[in-house]
């Protein structure tokens, strides 16, 4: 995602809502992606998107345009997701989730997953992972952020982040292996 134009940020800081709408339209999918992969619930994910942009609007005046906007946005969204995860019940896969994954794995076409499918796959793979392991896996593996950016967002040091990512990867690989999927 491209850094928003400084002019747009400056207008947002002056309270221009139309400029802020541009920011929302450009970044809402990114925030939604993170939230859905973290929370495995479409409606919860939309709530997090809404809350994230309200927070951004409230504190846009204190935002330094020299710093990456994406990192700032991810930081706010990640914290809101973690807050919800702490309050939420632990993820328990549904009986149909395995079938959803099987359908996805069997389909050779590069079709987009539906949001319900996303939720099913996350429930199945993320079961038993800690909050830190989930956030590390989502940011570094699924959202493809750099370790440095993930460190800044999660406030974990490199060692912590790497170990959480490693454990999460191993656990998910093992789960997929147990479900009958082959390694390379």
């Amino acid at each position, binding site marked *: 995602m491209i850094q928003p134009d400084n002019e747009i940020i400056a207008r947002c800081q002056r*309270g221009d*809502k139309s400029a*802020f*709408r541009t920011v*929302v*339209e450009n970044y*809402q*999918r*990114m925030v*939604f*992606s993170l939230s*859905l*992969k973290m929370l495995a619930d*479409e409606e919860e994910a*939309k709530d997090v*998107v*809404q809350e994230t*942009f*309200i927070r951004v*609007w*409230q504190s*846009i*005046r204190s935002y330094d345009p020299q710093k990456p906007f994406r990192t700032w946005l991810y930081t706010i969204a990640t914290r809101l997701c973690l807050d919800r995860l702490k309050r939420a019940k632990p993820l328990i896969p549904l009986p149909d989730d395995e079938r959803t*994954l099987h359908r*996805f*794995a*069997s389909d*050779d076409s*590069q079709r*987009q*997953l539906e*949001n319900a499918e*996303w939720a099913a*796959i996350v429930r199945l793979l993320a079961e038993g992972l800690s909050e830190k392991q989930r956030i590390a896996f989502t940011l570094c*593996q*699924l*959202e*493809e952020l750099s370790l440095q950016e993930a460190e800044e967002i999660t406030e974990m040091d490199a060692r912590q982040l790497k170990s959480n990512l490693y454990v999460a990867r191993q656990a*998910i*690989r093992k789960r*997929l*292996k147990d479900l009958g*999927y*082959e*390694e*390379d």
Partner: protein
Amino acid sequence: MKKIEDILIQLQQQPTVSHPDELADRIMDSLPDMDAQPDNDKSGRRSTRRARLYIISAIAVAASILLLLMLNVNQDIKEGNTIASSEKVRMPREQFSQVTEKDSVPDRKISDTPVNICRKPLVVAKVRKKKQIDSLDYYIAKIERELTQVDESLYIDRMQKLIHADERLQRIVNNYLLHQLDKDGRPMEAINTNNVNMTENEE
């Protein structure tokens, strides 16, 4: 069938928002007024902080009062215990001090407490003994004074008269002499010698 690595790579795609415009509208409608919101927030935060401070200070005051009360109660209990226990130990000392006080201040009234009632006979005995010692000294001094005024020729005569005058004193002196002789295991000659010496002195 995809392999594990392929699955993980394909999961890197971004899910799509089902109705992006709706979500954007929802977000834009819920945005608070930028100018008003922070002030309201600040005042709200201030009032909550004040409320919290009041609650915390009230709890602190209540806790300190409770603590003080508990400390006082504990101190009372401890003091009670120590007084009770120390009374047992201090009793003889107090008796002794009472006796000395009594000696120094003879006219002082004895209090009606049970402790003082117990002390009473001791005090009386002490006082009596003291008076007896005083009176014996007094009489000895008186005799000595009288004897100094008597001529040498009449001295022994006067002594004999005094000894004979008091039979009890005579008995005491005799008993004392006999006890001394028995204890030392001396022969009767010694008594005689003493007697001789005495008579010599008398003469």
